[in-house]
């Protein structure tokens, strides 16, 4: 059952993808993801887990590895009251669902680290199974939804080029 990772404080791109390991292959970089704030994260995160962060998630560098390592480690969605713009775009371009949550929900006690959760992309919401709470997330424009559903920008462009090719 997917679990919630509740990260507190500012999660910047150096914390997600430390500069020193940027020259290394993705699996090695991923081993160091969030180690500065949550040393066990890379070792214990499981496929489908959901990450909930405080405001301005992913602030800092343009390195898309910050989003890529989360996807590589199996994170199914990143939720925060607000995102740094480049991180937000990078996540969508890599097909990693990112959703904003109304700040008022951040105080919900059951949104705790380790809570058993279920994430619903289509009607964006986060179900907390421990007490059957449902938290609505803020919907995104259809254009961005399509990019994520296609699996990110590259598969999206492949699809587009294929369509253009078949028309010509």
């Amino acid at each position: 059952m997917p679990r919630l990772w509740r990260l507190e404080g500012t999660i910047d791109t150096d914390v997600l993808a430390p500069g020193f390991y940027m020259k290394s292959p993705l699996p090695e970089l991923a081993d160091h993801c969030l180690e500065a704030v949550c040393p066990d994260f890379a070792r214990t995160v499981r496929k489908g887990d959901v990450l909930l962060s405080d405001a301005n998630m992913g602030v800092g560098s343009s390195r898309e590895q910050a989003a890529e390592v989360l996807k590589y480690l199996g994170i199914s969605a990143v939720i925060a009251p607000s995102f740094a713009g480049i991180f937000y775009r990078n996540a969508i371009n890599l097909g990693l669902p990112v959703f904003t949550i109304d700040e008022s929900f951040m105080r919900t006690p059951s949104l705790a680290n380790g809570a058993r959760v279920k994430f619903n992309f289509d009607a964006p919401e986060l179900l907390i199974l421990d007490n059957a709470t449902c938290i609505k997330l803020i919907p995104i424009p259809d254009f961005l939804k399509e990019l994520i559903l296609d699996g990110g920008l590259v598969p999206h462009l492949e699809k587009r080029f294929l369509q253009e090719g078949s028309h010509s």
Partner: protein
Amino acid sequence: MITLAKKLLSDASGKANLDVGDIVICNVDLAMIHDSGGPRRVKPILERLKRNVWNKKKIVVVTDHYVPVENDETRAIQALTKKWVKDNEIDNFYDEQGICHIVLPERGHLTPGLFCVGGDSHSPTGGAFGAYMFGIGATEMAGVLATGSIWIQTPETILMLWQNQLRKYVTAKDMMLAMCRKIGMGGGRYQAIQFAGETIRNLPMQERMTLSNMAAELGAQAGLIAPDETTIAYVEAAGGQVPINWRDFQIETAEETSNITQFDAANLSPQIAAPHSPENSDNACEFRDTAFDVAYIGACTGAKYIDLLAAADVLKGKRIAKGVILKVAPASLRDQHRAAEDGIMQILEDAGADFLANSCGICAGYGEDRLADGQVCISSTARNFKGRMGAQSSSVYLASPYTVAASAVTGMLTDPRLVMED
């Protein structure tokens, strides 16, 4: 009249009457990539898409991250970069000439009215020239290189209105650290920040670049400054093509500009931002008696010619304090040569500075000189996130080149006005 941001996006998308929030597809006039996020990352994606670059003349490649190469991994990255540039017949290739955000304008690539993307988060630097420029990741860059276009959500304009004159030894960097405290790192909400007012109009281009550069730290997508005669003189001297309609982009405020934050430059003192965020800033004098190990003048933010000049102004005839080291990494080779011709490099050397390559280096936590365990640094760079410049246990204070140099002289964090005679 519409905002400068809307005017630039309207021109790039061919769509008039844009509303804030509208998603439009814009044609890209210039795409800048560097050795870290560039060829090594976009090459496999372009191969997968079976596409070549859309326009080799609109692409600029700069090596500035893995410079100098330090091992086989980084040597391979540079070899791949050079081969990709050759295979794709990119003429605009600047190999080890300095940091991309400085090299781009000094070689005349930025002019008012352009719509540009850069594969680096400090790409808003281009906004200082009245261009719309923002940073994107490698996958999105590959998409631009394949199609020549990119989606963008029409931003609102957040105006930073600065009145009056800066006092001596107070700089654009101090203005920026004050803005970081005032609106916070998320305050830009990924909208377009525009810097305007008398103070801005009186700043030389390299100081304006510091403001636009750190629009990234304000969380903005772009950091615009309306072009004026100062802009045009710089672009012409750099060999750039000034568009005949450049005055069309001379827009400071529009009817719809309602989000305005006002600042009084005359009341601003030198600022220092404490670890681990640029928004932890306060008057430099509040940090007196704070010891440190390394003083660093480097990066696109803080080691341009004008920054080296400021450091030399403080360090002339002085020596750095015992027990601290001063490292200087001039932001571009051209600025370093100019500084050498003007005697600035000699002043820095005589004061006890060590010189590093014209690259991102320590600022990005790259290379052998990165901060060691527990080291404390005062730096003219843009970011002091935990561990950014080296070991997780290191910490970084941010300040202007004046303040970094003054601190190097005393060995404690110091307001530069305290070491200057006038």
